[in-house]
């Protein structure tokens, strides 16, 4: 069972520039625990001081908000695309006209 995690540019400074990461995590809490080990900088960015996912981040499974699928209880399916997007996403440090 493998899932694909897709990250916006804003997060790639913590993942060696990678926008896609493969994972075998079974659910969202397991995925976040995995980040603690593999990308601690990313973990710090997406979790608050209590270790909870920040309220300004949305998680999508394929095309659906994970909250419509049961949230933390949702069991990842093989081939799922998991997207992490700030709720008001957009923009990064690069200037236009690159």
């Amino acid at each position, binding site marked *: 069972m493998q899932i694909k995690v897709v990250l*916006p*540019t*804003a997060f790639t400074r913590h993942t060696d520039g990678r926008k896609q990461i493969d994972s075998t995590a079974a659910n969202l809490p397991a995925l976040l625990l995995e980040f603690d080990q593999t990308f601690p900088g990313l973990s710090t*960015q*997406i979790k*608050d001081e209590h270790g909870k996912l*920040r*309220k*300004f*981040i*949305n998680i*999508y499974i394929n*095309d659906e*908000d994970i*909250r*419509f699928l049961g949230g933390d209880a949702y069991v990842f399916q093989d081939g799922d695309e998991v*997207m992490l*997007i*700030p*709720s*008001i*996403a*957009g*923009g*990064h*440090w690069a*200037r*236009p*006209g*690159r």
Partner: protein
Amino acid sequence: MDYSCSNYELACNECGKRYGNRPLSACPDCLAPLEVVYDLLNAKGVFTRDSIARGPASIWRYARLLPVPEGFQPDLPVGFTPLVHADRLGARIGASNLYVKNDAVCFPTLSFKDRVVSVALANARKFGFDTVGCSSTGNLANSVAAQAARLGLKACILVPADLEPAKILNTLVYGARLIRIDGNYDHVNRLSTLIADEYNWGFVNVNLRPYYAEGSKTVGYEIAEQLGWRLPDSVVVPMAGGSLIRKIRKAFNELIFLGLVRKPARPTRFFGAQATGCSPISVAVREGTEDIVPQRPNTIARSLAIGNPADGPAAAKMILQDGGWAQDVSDVEIVSGIQELAETEGIFTETAGGVTTAVTARLYADGRIARDETTVVCITGNGLKTTDALADRYDLGEAIRPRLADFDACLRSLDGETEPELVAAGES
């Protein structure tokens, strides 16, 4: 007149970190939305009633408190829409001091979105974007398409596939690329964030969002000025993403700080209006929380159909803090609201305005707003764009022969009368 404000920059709503000016909408550190902050002290004595009165009859009279780059010269006379005393609507719903802020006639595309787009595009040009875009429930699409055409910018616009035909036509006519997405607004918005991440485009409600949202403040400035530089007791505002209601309050607070209006004894209360079929913010307010539970929209008020509102938490928090309320109404009430506003005030609004009107009636009926309060109802869009909502409401009847007797019979039938009104000449 100097139309630029050089003393502004982006700041994080949560952690307060500042980011200068760049196309960026979320704090890179804590991911919270960014907001434009101003050096208001610098505007003291410059942004005055007199200086505003000398400005043009458009939102640009308030340019000193808008995030527009140095040297900016306004092109279109956007905004400065009528604020009308709504006696007849008031009489019907039990309000003795009711006003309608009528953005159904905003220039150039007949919705309040013209305000935000004009500010966003001023910044798009400054940042060097040659293509602009948006995710939209319709009104924004119209405005981006029109104003981009005017400025010679390319436009690419994403909308839910089931958008009202008039809103699609009103986008395509300006030559914009319009892409219909098989999904609801929240799907469209998510795709827009991915596009803005990959393409060097200025998405007005994504990477230009902090600047864009500031344009909404002009509704608040205009209300205060048109009331004779005083603040209303209550404001009723439709909520989709939850931005407008916050920005009107921001405008009021700036005017108080700068001494243009007196701080009222009781702060203005803000009332949010949603359709029951998409009511994540009003549900949160009702439950006394700022935690928004997203919904799958199902309402004829498509321009308010945002199930996961970006500024929802902040809007709910603000409403609860200020002693206001949020209310939602059914699709049936929305249509009645459209008709009521049209029949009493001669203002034809779209479904979102039907929501706002119906919610206003409910707020008075429930005693949440007292009869004699000065209340402003924000009508944000034009009914010509959502005529399908009324399609089955009126019976055109049979055409009659061009004869007076036929006319008289027809008139009696329309009015439900049995006695003839036709009086032969000389009998009266």
